[in-house]
């Protein structure tokens, strides 16, 4: 499987201007715009940790060698408000990831686009549109 294929050279100004700012860290300080990644991986676990959740996947190379990667996801509380639970991403699920690798060359990446293999997004839902998202509460 491809392991670090340059796919798109992004237009950073436009891109960043259209994404929400002030998450917990400076993205471009952490991820390398010169190291795009795009590959398929199999979920081994999802860490529901703050300030951001991380999805662990195994990526199989064309030589058959399996390399573990970590992909950053939203804050766990935001995922919960969008209706996610610990069961939403079972171990063994195949996902497609597109983003950029950590600057220090570690196998960590931002998940700019994460989908299931049928092309559907992993993170669908709105924190404002799903009053039942939070467990243990009832909608008014």
């Amino acid at each position, binding site marked *: 499987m491809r392991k670090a294929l340059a796919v798109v050279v992004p237009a950073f*100004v436009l891109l*960043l201007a259209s994404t*929400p700012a002030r998450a917990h860290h400076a993205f471009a300080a952490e991820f390398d*715009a010169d190291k795009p990644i795009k590959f398929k991986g199999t979920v081994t676990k999802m860490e529901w940790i703050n300030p951001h959740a991380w999805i662990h996947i195994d990526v199989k190379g064309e030589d058959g060698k399996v390399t573990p990667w970590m992909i950053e996801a939203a804050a766990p509380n935001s995922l919960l408000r969008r209706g996610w639970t610990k069961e939403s991403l079972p171990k063994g699920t195949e996902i497609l990831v597109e983003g950029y690798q950590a600057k220090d060359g570690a196998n960590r990446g931002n998940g700019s686009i994460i989908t299931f293999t049928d092309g559907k*997004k992993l993170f669908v839902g709105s924190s404002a*549109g799903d009053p039942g998202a939070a467990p243990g509460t009832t909608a*008014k």
Partner: protein
Amino acid sequence: MKYPCLVPVAAVVAGVAMFALAAGPVLGQSAPPKSKASPAAKTWTQPKTPWGDPDLQGTWTSDDCIGTPMNRPANFGDRLYYTEQELADRQDRLKTQLQTDLVETVASGQRVGTGPPAHWAERARRPCRQTSLVIDPPNGKTPDLTAEAKTRRIPEGAGNNNPKADSWEDFSYYIRCISRGVPGSIFPVIYGNGQQIVQAPGFVTIMQEMVHEARVIPLDGRPHASPNIRSYMGDPRGRWEGNTLVVETTNFLGNRNGLVGNGGGTPFSDAMKFTERFTRLGPDEIAYKITIDDPKTYASPFTVGFPLTQEPGYQNFEYACHEGNYAMFDSLSGARAQEKRAAEAAAKKK
């Protein structure tokens, strides 16, 4: 130790662009537009606790003013509230945004970037009625910084994609998972805006989701702690003025958190005094105002205000920030890797 220039101003642009929506009914101004969060406000009576204090208890959020700029854009002049037409336009944009959140497939041509994906954000439920978070002075702008404040070092924040990253100490207290300070812990940002108010006789406590602050506010009139005792979140004292909870907070360490999102920007000084007012307007809305008086930092006091609302199903969750703060590691190790590459490239040239 500089990173390549990756749009250091993008965060500011993004905040405005992405959330040019926002807001909700405003608080405490002379003629606030009618509240959509509290439709029953006309017949509503302020409930009291069993011991007779106004009851503010519940979990509230400042989500509705996500994206509202601190300083009012010049074209609005002294106008604090949007017109009905402007609000309707913003409502349409909000609706489109919420519909986009529910689209199941990736839009064709979606860009891949190093920035946070759109799905990370929590959303306003109704458009913010205000043109700025600053409600006083009337021009909606923060007063000038003092000459001394302009020389203060601003820690590297999440809005800077080109940070100085020599040490963890270069980063903001938010990125370091320490504290966002008093304003930073309640001002609306892209997620984690929850405020749980719990009352007991003689005390009000505010649990703030991000970065899990708990402000315990005594109401018994005790004096402030000695000026020798200082902290990140200060020493609050509360009292009731009618049904309004007034909280005065002093005894700050100084040079820690500032006014900009998540406690960033020019840090406040140790002379900082905050006076906050919480006025419940209806079952699901509190008018929140904070007057910021820091003569070492700002030329004059000013007031920021916005609504806090209760929303169906909304509650606080734990935010144990440091447990997975890979970003700090990655930013520092990334800077070192970059220096190494630069040094190798320089050596090759020789």
